[in-house]
Each structure stands twice: as C-alpha cells, then as structure tokens.
C-alpha cells in the first residue's frame, strides 16, 4: 500500500514510509491512546500468564511420600494441560500461548535482526510469514491438544505441603528424628479459581483470599484473573466472527451494487429491527447447554450488520476508482479484485469499528452471564457479579464491575486513538 508518489525523493527513503508507519506515528502522538494500547497489551499478558500468578499447584515440590521416600515433582507444568483442572478450551488455548508466546517474541527478534537492511517489501513479507506460521501453529496445536486431552490424578499439593511442614515442626518439638522438611515454590497466589471449599464460604476480603470467596468457597481474586481470559477471548473471537460475515457480505453488496446490494441491505435492516440483546438472549435460550463458544458464535451471528454497512459504503466509493477499472480491464478475476484490490483499501473504518466491538462484546458476555445465560463453568466476570448480587457481597460486585470498566475503557481509548490516526484530515 505504498501509495506515495513524489518526484525528487530517493527511492529508498520513500520505501521507509508506509501507510501503517504513518498511522503508527500518528497514533503515538495521542498519549492517552498510546498508554491505553500498552495497558491492553498488559491485560493480554495478564490473561496469558494467569497461571503463573494464580494457581494452587506448586512449580516445584519436594516432599516425603507416604512410604517416607523423598519425591520431587513439578505439578504446575503438568497441570497446564490437565483437563481435570483446565476443562475449558479457552484455558487450553491461553496455556498454549503461555508456552508459545516467549518463543514467538524470540523468533520475532531473530527475524528483525535477519531482515535488517533489506527493503520494506521483503521485510514485511518476512513478518507476514512469521505471523502466519505462528497462527497456523497455534491453531493446530490447540486443536490437537483439545482433541487429545491429558489428565492426571488429583493431588492436593497445598495439603501435602502444609502437612509436611506441620509434621517436621512436630518432630522438632518432640525431638524425634526429623522427617524431610518439604520445600515447594507456589505461584504468588496459591488459590484455585474453581475448587469449592465449603469451610471457607463467603470469607471477607484480606488474608489468604485477597478479594474473599464466593458462596461456593471459591477465591474471587483467582476468578477475576482467569476472567480476563474469558473476556478477551469473547471479545476477539466474537468480533472476528462478525467481521468475517460482515466484511464479505458488505463487500459483495458494495461491489456488485444493484440487486445484490438490495438483498443484503434488506437483510441488514431485518437484523437491525430486533434489539441485539433480546435477540441474543432468545438464541441462547434455544441452546440446551450453552458453552462459552456458543455465546461467542451467537454474538457474532447477530452483530455483523455494523461492519457490513461500513464495508459496503467504502466499496461503493471505491468501485468507481481508476485502480479498480485497471484491475478489471487487465482481466483479474472478480474475487481477486474484490478481496485483493478493493478490500485492503476499505478496511480502516472496519478496524476502528472492531476495536469498539471488542469492548461491546465483553459487555454483552458479562450481561449474559449476569443474567445466568452464559457458560456456568467459566469464571466469567458477569457470573461473579451475579453471585455477588445474589448474596449482597459488595466486593464481589465492585471487583468485576471495576474490571469490566477498565477493560472496556482501555479498548475504547485505543479505538478512539486509532480512529483519529486513520483519519487523514486530522493528520498534522
């Protein structure tokens, strides 16, 4: 998309300036949006590295087992892909990311190093290949891991550790021969996001439980952290689904105009007649056992009309341009004209729409879970909010409310920054 054409500048210098580097430079000027962008990256990192912060299994434990033999285990690493602990596909995906993302970043550095000094075209090609390879790899690994779930017998390591310590203390006091003192490294918050502990129901915040526990004795803080995963996935996946539908339909409508346009527009109008939330709630009610994937799919199927209209508008504007006429005249097949020539030029408004869309989807999911229509097993923020409301626990209302507020605000900041950066009229 190097559309800059100017006479007297050396060809290499032109090469350095791409459309996206201009946008990025523009985006950086908006300090709030720029900060928001990095905070969002931080949020993603939090979602990916949640088990490093919160999990009840130790990274490493060494203790004397029932027969008195010293054992050293690394339960944390095994539990990452234990379907008895992480039963949700989202968690599996994020745990794979947890392993893969450092490698991906590393390979990114290597590529950057390798590509130094090459022209932009080659560099961007390399980058595209890198990202593509990683995406394919991720999806393949996630599917393989999900289809071949591994699991391990349940062991309460916190209990083993506590008992071992108690025993050795007892041995110290009684002066008996000391058994092995267990040593272990737990994550900073050694709490479970799903294990119900009936002796600790509705514990107040503080102490072992940073934000207290809910009415099943589950740690609220742990659920908040793992809820980040749910929220972000919901946002991204649901938006991807509706972008996919909306962009294709919008592109076809805009490009062919006439009857196709008529049909798609009527379809959009029909969809927009129904209040989105009501439509989603109706559809969710039809699913017997709504999992988090159903919820995403339903949100995606319902909300595609926005991007469809945007893309259609852009296409209507662009289809008369010379470069389209040129492409058609040189015999390029229609699908290629649509998706390779016109679409890249029509995407920027959709991108802004998508950023805001992620925020909206997070809100919708929280609403559904709050109403009890979401996935019952996922530690969603909305569900915590619902339990908090049912039990009148202020902290369980404030914490998820705050988390939703932060996430949605950050995404909106980024969206706004992006919108300004993409708008040529605002460029200085």
């Amino acid at each position, binding site marked *: 998309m190097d559309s800059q054409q100017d006479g007297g500048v050396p060809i290499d210098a032109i090469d350095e300036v791409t459309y996206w580097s201009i946008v990025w430079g523009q985006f950086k000027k908006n300090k709030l949006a720029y900060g928001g962008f990095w905070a969002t990256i931080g949020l993603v990192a939090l979602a990916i590295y949640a088990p490093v912060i919160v999990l009840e299994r130790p990274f490493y434990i060494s203790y004397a087992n029932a027969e008195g033999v010293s054992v050293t285990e690394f339960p944390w690493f095994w539990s990452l892909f*234990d379907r*008895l602990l992480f039963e949700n596909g989202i968690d599996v995906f994020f745990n794979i990311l947890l392993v893969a993302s450092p490698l991906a970043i590393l390979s990114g550095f290597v590529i950057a190093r390798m590509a130094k000094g090459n022209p932009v075209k080659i560099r961007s090609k390399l980058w595209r290949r890198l990202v593509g390879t990683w995406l394919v790899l991720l999806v393949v690994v996630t599917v393989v891991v999900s289809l071949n779930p*591994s*699991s*391990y*017998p*349940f062991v*309460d390591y916190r209990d083993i550790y506590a008992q071992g310590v108690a025993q050795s203390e007892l041995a110290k006091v009684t002066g008996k021969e000391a058994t092995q003192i267990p040593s272990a490294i737990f994550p900073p918050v050694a709490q479970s996001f*799903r*294990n*119900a502990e*009936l*002796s600790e*129901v509705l514990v107040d915040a503080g102490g072992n439980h940073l934000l207290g526990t809910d*009415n*099943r*004795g*589950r740690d609220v803080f742990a659920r908040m952290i793992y809820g980040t995963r749910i929220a972000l996935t919901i946002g991204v996946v649901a938006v991807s689904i509706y972008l996919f539908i909306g962009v294709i339909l919008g592109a076809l409508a805009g490009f062919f105009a006439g009857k196709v346009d008529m049909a798609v527009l009527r379809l959009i109008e029909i969809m927009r007649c129904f209040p989105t939330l009501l439509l989603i709630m109706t559809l969710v*009610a039809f699913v*017997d*056992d709504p999992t988090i994937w159903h919820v995403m799919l339903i949100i995606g199927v319902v909300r595609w009309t926005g991007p469809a209209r945007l893309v259609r508008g852009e296409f209507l504007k662009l289809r008369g341009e010379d470069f389209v006429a040129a492409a058609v005249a040189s015999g390029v097949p229609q699908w290629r004209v649509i998706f390779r020539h016109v679409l890249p030029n029509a995407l920027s408004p959709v991108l802004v729409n998508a950023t805001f869309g992620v925020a909206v989807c997070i809100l919708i999911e929280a609403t559904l879970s709050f109403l*009890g229509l979401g996935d*019952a*097993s996922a530690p969603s923020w909305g569900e915590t909010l619902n*339990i908090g409301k*049912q*039990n*009148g626990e202020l902290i369980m209302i404030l914490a998820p409310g705050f988390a939703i507020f932060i996430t949605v605000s950050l995404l909106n900041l980024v969206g706004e920054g992006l919108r300004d950066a993409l708008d040529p009229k605002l460029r200085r």
Partner: protein
Amino acid sequence: MSRNLTVQLMTAGLMLALLIAIVINVVQFNSIEATTLEIRQKVDKNQKDLADIQDRLKKGVSVGNGGGGTTANAGGDNSGAVKLTVEDPDAKGQLVSVDPTPLMAPDAVPGGTLNIPAGSDFKGWNFLVESSTDVSAVQDVLVHGLLARRSYADPNKWHADLAQSVIVSDDFKTYHVKLRKGVKWHKPAVDFSNPRYKWLDKDHELTSDDFKFFFEMLLDDKVQGAASKRGYYKDDFDRIEIINDYEFKLHWNKKTYQSKAYSLEIFPVPRWLYAYDEDGNAYSPEIIGVKFNSHWYNDRAIGIGPYRFVEAKPGEYVKLERFPDYFGGRVAIDKINIYVVKDNDRRLLMFKKNEVDFFSMTPTQYRQEILEGEDDSPFKNGRYTITKFLRLAYRYIGWNQKSELFKDKRVRTAMTHAFDRERILSEVWVGLGKVVTSGFFYSSPAYDKSIEPYPFDLNKAKALLEEAGWVDSDGDGIRDKVIGGKKTKFEFRLYIYNNSAEYKALADIYKEDLVKIGVVLNVTPLDWPIMQKRMEDKDFEAFTGGWGLDWEPDPHQLWHSSQADAPKASNFISFKNAEADEIIDTGRKTFDPAERTKLFHRFHAIMHEEQPYTFFSVPTTVFVTNERYQNFKIQKPRPHALHRLGWIKEK
C-alpha cells in the same frame, strides 16, 4: 435601560404574586380534599358497621333454626360463627367430626383486605383441569369444596365440610355420604348486564349431581388436564351411586388404605355451568370431555366456599371477595388480592413496602435479612412474624439405573458418600432444611429416624468404587472399567434446574469433590419442561429433583417396578426391587397404623441400602407475615394452601 429594569421588576413581582396565589389555592384544595376524604371514610365505616350488624342478625337467625347454641349478642365473640353439625357423630364407620375451631378467632376484627404474592402465573381456574400448587392454594379457600378436610391440629382427623356424614362400610369398599343441605353455589363471575348470560343469573344449590359430574369428567379420558388426578381412581374406583339429591354412595373395587383420603377429598363440579356453552346450550355427551378441558369459563373460577372469585388479569392479579351466603359462617377478611410476582427480590421489596402481607423467603433472603440482618430491622425486632416449618417434600439426586455407570448400588452409595449433604445444606441453603435418608416425610411415623445418613467420606467412596471395579487403570486421574469389552471412563452429566442459584452451587461443589475421587461430572442446567421430557424419555444419567409428598405415604408412584417402564410414569430412574414391590402392595391393603409403620420402616431401610436416589434434604420454608396479618396458621399437610382463620389488623 432603567425603563427596561422597571419592566423586569414588575414582571418578577407579578410572577411572585401569582405563585403565592397558586400556593394558597393548592393548600385550600388540599384541606377540602382531606375533609372530603374524612367524611368518606366515616361513611364507609358506618356502612361496614351496618353490614356487620346485618350479618350478625342473619347468622343469629339461622343458628337459632339449626338448633344451635350461640346467639348473636352484640358484644359476643365469634360473631356470626355457625355451629356446623355432623349427623350422628358416634355412628359406626363415621369418618368425619365437627371442626371445633371457629372460623373467626375471638379477638378477630372483621373486614380488611389481604394482599398476597404468587410465584407464578395462574394458567386457569378449572380446578379439575389445573393442578399447580398456586391454583390449589386458592382452591382450598375459595371452593372449599371437599367433602371433608384434614384437621389443622391433627391431620389424621377429618372435619366435616360439605358432607354432614360419611359412613364407611366394614369392608372399606363403600362410602355413604350425606350432604349438607342448603349450600349455595357462588354466582359465576360474568357480566350479568349482558343478556347473553341471563341463563346463569339464578341461585343454585349443591346436590349429589355435582359430585356425579365430578366423576364423569375425572374419568373421561378426553379431559386431558385431569390425567394426573385420574391416576388413582382409574385402577380402583368403581362407581358413584346417587340415592337422592343429598345422598350418594362411592363404591371401590378393592379394599385399599388410600381410598379414604381419595373419597373424602373429592370436590363438586357444577354441571349447571360446565355442561353448557356460553349461550346456555348443553353440550352433547360425545364432545363434553373435550369442551370441559377447554371450557369457556376456565379462565374464571366457581365455588361454594367463603370467598368468591371476582376477576383475574393473567400475569398480574386475582381478586376474591367474601361470599356473604357462605354456609359455614363468616370469615374475617373481606377481600383477598393475589398478585403474580415472579421475581424473588421484588416480592421482598413489595413486602417491605407493605404491598403484600406475607411471602416465603429464599435462602439468600433469609441469610441477608435474618442471619446477617441488623438487630433493629423489622425482621428481627418482632415487627414481622417469622414462621419456619418443614415442607412436605424432599430434594434428591436421581441416578438412572439403566445407565451402565449407576447399575451397581455400590457406585450409587459411593456417590452419596462423596456428596457433602450437611455442609451444602448449611452453606448453600443456609441451614434451611434437614438431611434425609428416604422419601418419607421427615416428621411422619413412616420415616425411620434411627437410620443415620451416610457421612461425607471421600475415602469410603473411593473404596466402594474400587470394590465395584472402577479403578484408574491408566493413571489419567479418571476411573475406568471395561464394560462389554470397551473401556469406559467414569464421566457423567448431571441435569440441574436452570433458574436456581442454589442448585448451581450444589453442582459446582459436587463436581469438585468428585474430581478428587477420579470421577468427572459435567453439569448442564436445563429448563424444567426440557428436563421433564428427558426424564420421561429416560435420556439422562443423573438429575437433581424434588418431590412433594402426600400426608399419607404411598410409594407406588415412584418406586413400584410396574412404574419403571410405563410411559410418562414417575419412576424415571427405573428402580426395580421385588421386596419393595411387595411392601408397596401390602401397604395399600394394610390399615393398622403400627403395621403400616413397620412396613414403611422396612421400605425406608431398602431405600437406604439401595440408594436409588441420593436423598438430600427436606426443605424448611420460611414464611414472613407483617403486623397487619393476624392469626396466620399453617396446615401441616398443605402448607401452601391459604387458611381461612386470619384477620387483618388495621392501624
């Protein structure tokens, strides 16, 4: 400039004057209104007093004729209470006695309106076709149409109601009923100014024919709504024999214990209304069953009880008013409004705002308002009255005994051991209930209290599973077993009610405990109709459920093997046990209370041994009444039913 200022000042002054005038006016109007209101209230009160006096006079006269004891003296208690009599109370086989409790408490003040909430919408008002608890709660007050009713004090005793005498033959096969004379039906709730309904505008007296019509409709297969009520009569009931307008006999095929309750709890259904279409033309015998099932009057109610149906708005309210010609005497409350409020929180809010006079609390509300409430809140300082009682019901987890997983009783027992009943009850249901070990009502003699519930013990559960052949052979943390040459993992699905926060918590907790013993539980919340369908199709592995109980137990419906394969029968889990069958059959023929108790205790032991269900708990219901509602009482066998003894204390 200055001219302008003057104009502005003048305008401001004018506005001020106008404002003052308006204020004065409003105050004047208000005082006039207040006076008017006062006068109107006075007139109302006078009218009420007058009606009262008339009432008392009327009752006084009728009592005098009936050879009664009370006279209507102006300052007397039980104003207007009629002494109902039973014909020859000492006759052999006489089943009914006189209810000694007066309809109006001695200190009761007549008049007032009672406002109560209902949890769900009323689908219809034909009592034979509708069977939801909300409708039957109103039926008891309004229709008051049973031959006899169970005593409040001792539910094993029967008090005469529409019958003046019910004499049972020695072989318990024939019930000879003599009806009370001069009992008047309510007038239908139709618009009599419309000439179309002129044919209904007359008084009708209760006769034997109304009971005959009840049986005709009950036993007609075309009346689909009565299917659940038909069950018992279909097998053992023979016929009704009309002797005259006030006398009839009920004949049964077999001598069965339950026939007594089923004979005494029948209610009349008026032929003069339900056998006719809206214009007063009689239906032909071929179509009457279908027409009755969806009769034009089914959206309203007809009865002979102390309250008359006035109007209903679906999804909003039902209004009842006192029936002045009620044969039993005067009840205290004049009007009853029932509001349909589905949301739990809204019911609480309405109660706090005095819009309803009583409601039943959810466990969460109980915890918030009573366990954790401020000491000076009206829930705790004595302003509201809290009534707690064990409901005639129980909750359980049902195991499909056709499933490979739950065929073995050792597995089912292990499941019970892994289910932390005591703690779940105390934490999730805030202790509202009692852990039970069988389906008999906890406070009834049939329940054997000597049987201790299996304790929560994961090690015992593990041992039992291993004994049953479920071991973790491949070290993946999930138990497995080779069934029919195929390795099966112990993983199953539990259906729970969709709209209950408590059941969701129960499932979450149970799931975590089961993982610890190598069993994977998946939870699926379902709406009730879908769940019911899956259960009828036997398309489930396990589900959470609850049953309401009869005062006199008859385990046939749930536990008899004949009900295991019958379509739509309630033995969803396909429980079959030869000894249990025998006890059920013997129990139906046994009349001696001690003998029955012995039988049921044995049955209880079988239940405990077999664990067809993991019996969970009998629920405690918490009713809250405000200071207006006096003399609130609960009838043990039918706590959901409104009673007629309350009165309203206005400030």
